[in-house]
């Protein structure tokens, strides 16, 4: 059986043109998918002998697992629910409802990837667009601190660089591609121009570029620390001013290096300034399949896109206070529940240390460092393969994922809903 137009929810590109073949209860082909998408469909679309629920590593019934996890959740004083970037919006809603009931914090992977982009929006706003605008109109593409060839393999071919569009009749030939990164990457091959600033000098470079765009005189000497020459930067500024529609795609090279939200704010302000004379946009290269979804669901339900606290009975927002690394590193959280994420493998050591000292509950679609370490571990059906639901692309375009396979596990949505029901019973 072939599912045409299946949606791949692995990365923020959320390509929806995948032809998925299912034979004998397993996925055998994912046509059109990139190397990451193929691996995602093929590995998640296989039968698994993992138990649906484990307590301290021992298989238990789902009911027993839910019971025990709910008792931990209902006793916690300052818990944190974290992750949610690789699941459906329907599951994300359930997680927020649960978090509200138990109090404490809810944070998503945004706080360790594009949180600084979200903070730049709060500071200065955001001139942006959907990916189709890029396909149809963009004649200048700048990837800054991003390596799409490896992180978003179809970004260049499906949306940005090679496709022909309404006002870009010749596709690649009508576009100029600039890559700005601290070293050449596999994406460099696709670029017409490669600019390699010194690490940690993005802010300085952006600020100087902004100066050039605004017509200010920039001294060669002032650029020395950035590793970029005035000639290179002037050439880029001229190209930006000559473009009909330009876009900067910003990656974690910008958001998670020295300067963080100051880097992103500088980039957003640069693009804002450009709009005095040129149509220009900016888009964060959101990584995980539905990390854009959790930002959206959190924003419409609580008003804030990440790092939300419910301890007072209503939502509060403060990055640096209610965000995962901070809540763990300061030894504040007394329970961590991870959903569709692997914090033990990805967080800094200080945060991991605390995670090892407090009860941990993990829900994921496969075995991970986090599920292995958790007191209670659940295996869930992958959203987009074993469960239907909604996913938001990096440009906030929402798509519906059908269920492709019957997997022997409940969905995140169902697990979270059952956990919430049980917690409410225990609390009443």
């Amino acid at each position: 059986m072939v599912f045409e137009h299946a949606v791949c929810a692995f990365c923020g590109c959320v390509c929806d043109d995948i032809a998925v073949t299912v034979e004998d209860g397993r996925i055998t082909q994912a046509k059109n998918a990139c190397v990451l998408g193929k691996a995602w469909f093929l590995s998640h679309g296989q039968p698994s002998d993992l138990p649906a629920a484990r307590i301290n590593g021992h298989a238990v019934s789902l009911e027993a697992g839910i019971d025990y996890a709910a008792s931990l959740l209902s006793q916690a004083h300052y818990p944190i629910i974290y992750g949610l970037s690789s699941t459906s919006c329907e599951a994300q809603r359930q997680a927020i409802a649960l978090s509200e009931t138990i109090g404490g914090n809810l944070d998503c992977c945004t706080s360790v990837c594009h949180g600084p982009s979200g903070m730049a929006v709060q500071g200065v706003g955001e001139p942006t667009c959907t990916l189709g605008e890029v396909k149809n109109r963009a004649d200048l593409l700048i990837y800054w601190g991003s390596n799409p060839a490896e992180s978003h393999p179809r970004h260049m071919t499906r949306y940005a660089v090679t496709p022909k569009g309404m006002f870009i009749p010749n596709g690649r030939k009508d576009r100029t591609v600039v890559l700005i990164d601290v070293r050449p990457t596999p994406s460099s091959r696709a670029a017409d121009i490669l600019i390699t600033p010194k690490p940690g000098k993005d802010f300085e470079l952006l600020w100087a570029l902004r100066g050039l765009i605004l017509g200010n005189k920039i001294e060669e000497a002032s650029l020395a620390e950035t590793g970029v020459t005035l000639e290179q930067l002037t050439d880029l500024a001229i190209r930006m001013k000559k473009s009909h529609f330009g876009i900067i795609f910003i990656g974690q090279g910008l958001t998670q290096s020295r300067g963080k939200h100051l880097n992103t704010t500088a980039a957003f302000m640069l693009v804002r300034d450009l709009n005095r004379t040129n149509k220009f946009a900016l888009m964060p290269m959101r990584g995980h399949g539905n990390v854009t979804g959790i930002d959206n669901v959190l924003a419409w339900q609580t008003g804030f896109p990440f790092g939300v606290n419910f301890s007072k009975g209503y939502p509060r927002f403060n990055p640096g206070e209610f965000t995962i690394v901070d809540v763990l590193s300061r030894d504040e959280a007394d329970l961590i529940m991870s959903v569709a994420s692997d914090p033990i493998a990805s967080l800094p050591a200080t945060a991991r240390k605390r995670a090892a000292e407090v009860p941990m509950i993990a829900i994921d679609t496969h075995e991970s460092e986090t599920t292995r370490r958790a007191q209670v571990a659940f295996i869930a059906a992958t959203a987009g393969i074993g469960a239907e639901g909604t996913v938001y692309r990096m440009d906030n375009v929402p798509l519906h994922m059908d269920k492709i396979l019957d997997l022997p596990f409940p969905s995140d949505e169902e697990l979270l809903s059952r956990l919430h029901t049980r917690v409410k019973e225990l609390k009443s």
Partner: protein
Amino acid sequence: MIRIINGEVYDPINGINGEVRDIFVDDRSIAAAGAGGTTIDAAGMVVMPGGIDMHCHIAGPKVNIARKMRPEDHRNDVLPRTQFTRSGVGGSIPSTFTTGYRYAAMGYTTAFDAAVPPLAARHAHEELNDTPVVDKGFYTLMGNNEFIMQHIASGEKEIVRNFAAWLLNATKAYSIKLVNPGGVELWKSLGNAHTLDDEVTGFKVTPRQIIQSLADASIELNLPHRVHIHCNNLGIAGNWETTLETMKALEDRQGHLTHIQFHSYGGTPGGLFHSKVVELADYVNSHPNLSVDVGQVMFGDTTSMTGDGPLGYLLYQVTGRKWVNVDVENEEGCGIVPIEYKDKSHVHATQWAIGLEWFLLVKDPWRIALTTDHPNGASFANYPRIIRLLMDRGYRKESMQHVNPKALADTTLPDLDREYSLYEIAIITRAAPARLLGLAKKGHLGVGADADITIYDKNDNKEKMFSVPRYVIKDGQILVEDGHLREDVSGRTFYVTPEYDLEVEKEIRKYFDAYYTVEFENYPVQLEHYLPRREAVMCRDIK
């Protein structure tokens, strides 16, 4: 069964003007008679149908990016969770739960979001599903749709109509919305449309043709709510001429001109405005095919959010505050800027006065609806104060004392003595929006109507009276008592399913393959999944 006895009933659709009579509710509807159940003694109280907001911005991508952009809007206005209700935040862009609860607590039971890009329809439905209590729906944007513009230019009227119908079906929307027709497309290369006859570059079409073609489509498709128009040149001095041209361009076609306050300015672009309401209201008064909602400005901090991209940029230039712009492929755009309306500002005072002039100068209340274009003119939380401004001449005069006097002097407001009656208030907040939307079971208390009822304690201070209803009944359930929500329920989503020739899908599919980044098959909103509680409103000849 609920019996509401001894109340003073205002039900304009049924011609009931303050008579004391009993209302019976059986299950979810109004009944002719009944016994048993709950009795509400409404002696000394006013009974009206539930309020209807026919133009607000409460769901979808533009609202949500505004929420993300403005944490400062939320932090001083929080809503803790209760035994029944979810927590949330307020401010000018409340979270979804707060939006539903606050409408209900104010006696409003139906609200329509006015501007959803078709590509984001699924998002709007997700948010509407998380907006409790009220019934809802949205209008979808078509005034800058490139497929539509191409086929208007080539004179293929039938394709335009069939496409509009297909799009309404695909998005599960309620009506066709135009925002700055042609101008938002031009904004994609930093331009704008300044007159109805400017050519949209690359598409060989004018705003006038877009307005006429989509007005025709909405009539030929028998949409329950005809075309809903946000005119070109919003907010620009001298724009009243464009507004008048738009009214004339409709000829005898039915059409709704929204947030008309923002489109009624004399003067020259870049300069101060003055009011041109007298001229425009005259035209509306003598043309029964036209209806308006006001988009009243109230003083204070709020958030401007619009599908009108070039307007967003203009406001950014004027205010210097943070600015969001989102261009949506093949369809639309969007601009968001925080804004504070100041009573000492000449421009803002003029806008405030112009809104009130509209209420007071349109003679037929059945063709004007109370809105603030929430949150653009102000939050919907201001409705009770606006009602007081309309009903209480003394309060209005007193309020004028605090407002820029030079600005007021250029309007007719100081000379207007009209006061709205409760009957007229019931028209502009209930009966008229229900009729204009073609919702036969809303906005009245006749037998068979939806049992959405608001009961107010009488009070000379009309702001207090309309702020905290004594009871709010939704679908036959008593949900609010003394301003407190007793129960959390979900309303339903209204949508239309106009018929179209399936042949058009071939053409649309080709277009998708060439210019969209989502698959044709993945574009339509899945009815069961995204509208779990729904009501299709029939498209039929309403002549």
